[in-house]
């Protein structure tokens, strides 16, 4: 039996500079990365090494100074403005270290809002029921079935991160981009979140995760290290 793999995400010679006062910080110095569909890749790096920057570039949230990010073969930065927004909404899902939930919304609404994007007031009622069902199912699956109407300030750190993961998954993205997903959690809760990611991965979810912690990176299929602006390992 032969297994065929597809490169879902590929970067070529990615460069990114930041200006810090008069200083020019060359954070990424030609990053080449290929992520296969269904793969869990961990990118390990010290604080300030540029791993979050790389993740933002992969998710189309930031633009490189040079180089390309290709999703399914298409350079995402050659897409028009609305299509790159669509890329972020449909094809990738972000999970942040600090959860970044919207405080005014309930857990359920925080998950639903991602599905509401790209749908007009008139288009929404047609899909509302099925999307809501999926959101409830996702949250229940993550042990938050009783917390649907709670606002983020009424949830624990672990619960917030699970809501953030549910939000990232609601549109069934091809790639989950996780930025230090356990960085703000205690060890036990961190392990629970990693177990959740492992389950998702087992179900076929492609994950790119950045972390500074080797033990967390060990959960991934493959671990790369970002050193002096380049990926090694």
């Amino acid at each position: 039996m032969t297994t065929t793999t597809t490169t879902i995400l590929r970067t070529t010679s990615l460069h990114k500079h930041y200006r810090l006062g008069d200083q020019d910080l060359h954070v990424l110095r030609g990053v080449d990365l290929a992520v296969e569909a269904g793969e869990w890749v961990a990118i390990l790096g010290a604080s300030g090494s540029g791993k979050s920057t790389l993740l933002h570039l992969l998710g189309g949230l930031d633009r490189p100074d040079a180089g390309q990010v290709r999703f399914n073969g298409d350079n995402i930065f050659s897409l028009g403005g609305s299509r790159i927004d669509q890329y972020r909404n449909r094809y990738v899902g972000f999970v942040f270290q600090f959860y970044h939930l919207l405080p005014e919304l309930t857990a359920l609404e925080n998950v639903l809002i991602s599905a509401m994007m790209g749908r007009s007031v008139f288009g929404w009622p047609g899909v509302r029921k099925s999307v809501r069902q999926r959101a409830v199912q996702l949250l229940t699956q993550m042990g938050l079935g009783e917390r649907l109407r709670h606002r983020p300030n009424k949830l624990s750190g672990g619960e917030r991160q699970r809501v953030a993961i549910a939000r990232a998954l609601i549109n069934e993205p091809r790639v989950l981009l996780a930025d230090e997903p356990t960085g703000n959690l205690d060890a036990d809760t961190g392990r629970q979140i990693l177990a959740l990611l492992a389950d998702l991965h087992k179900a076929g979810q492609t994950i790119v995760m950045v972390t500074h912690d080797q033990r967390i990176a060990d959960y991934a299929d493959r671990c790369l290290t970002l050193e002096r602006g380049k990926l090694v390992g």
Partner: protein
Amino acid sequence: MYKVLLISKYLRRKLAPLFAAVAVTICTAMVIIVISVMGGFLQTMRDAARRGTGDITIEAGWTGFPHYAELAQTLEQLPEVHAATPVIVGAGMVKLGDHVQVAPVVLGVDPADLNKVLPFQSTLYWGEENMSLPQVRQRAMQWQLPWDDPADADGSQASEANGNGKTTPPRGIMPGIEVYPKRRDKGGQYASWQSLIGARMNLTVVPVTQAGGMLEPETRELVVVNEIKSGLYDVDKSHIFVPFDLLQEMMGMGADEVIDPETGEPVGGRHEPRASRILVRAAPGVDLETAHEAVRKATARFAANHPDMTGLYTYTWEDQHRDLLNAVRNEKGLITVLFTIISVVAVVMVATIFYMIVLEKTRDIGVLRAIGASRMGIANIFLGYGLVIGLLGAILGTALGVTFVYNLNELQDLLDAWFGWRMWSAETYYFDEIPEHVDYAEAALIAFGAVVSSLAGALIPAALAAQLDPVESLRYE
């Protein structure tokens, strides 16, 4: 759809938008109140001016013109004219007891005729509703006192024989109710015991010859049969109405014998009696300018056939009061502009509040961008937010402003009752009540302006929000 959700959430959970909506509400109400009071002021002034002078006036200067009855009849034949009545205009003094008062405008009128041109009878203040006397107004319209015997055509008080044994026409007088001021209670009403009906009043006028010379002053004792309250303070303060032929005689404008100025002896023949003006009311539905043109042409034709009628000119009530009305109109415009400028404060306030919301929501904006919101989508959240606040402020402001305008006089009475303070002084302004008039088209325009202003206030913060770098926003603490 997410924009609707976020706007509704932001509106419910934040105090700041409430402040913004209150600012828009107050500014909308303020401009509506100012524009309505000024507009009502102008409208009331227009109505009162028209009520006081009729639609069109024909005049030939202080010495008057002859053949007035014939001319009035001719004018009444015109399809554009409803009625025409001659009046005598003089100036003089009135004396009531020891109180002497200048009477700048003494009008000699036939009340019944005048009532066809102006709503004269309705301006007689004393009526059955505020006096326990029957038919006060009807009697006054015939220069009679309420207690006169109606069968006595001359009226008992008014029919006195003068020195030469000739019976004068009924001699009643109707002064404006403010000619003798300070009689009003705090609510602006006049107590019936303060009525001047039955009081004796001396009227002195200075007759003028046709050549423009002044003769010896003429004085008559008259009896007050009613008082005039037109609602226009200026008129009520200055106008005195007396019988047409009485004033005509006193002013030397009657059919007197022709006197040789050299010898002072009659030379035979009589002067043609004269009137000062003819007041004309346009026929219903006839445009003022059309009626004016018809009256002007008919008067010119009539004058062409009467060589002794020179210097006649015609003008409309708008011409007569143009300066005053234009002044008020300009004042209204100026005040509206000033208050609109003040209302820019609302725009600045909305902009400031929204800017603060954008700052507060910077990280959320980053999150929204990360999960797929476009720049335009972010801008639209804040624009939609501004629109909702503008709509809310406009609706509440319009309701508040309109309610305030329609209850201004009641509010004034309350303030008077509580603090003894009246914001509207009839002595200062022209009317005894604050005009309660709302032009709904103007109010709608103001409300629309409020929505646009709110949107304008939200525009810069919305643009800033849209321009935020999502990566920087996510790092924002």
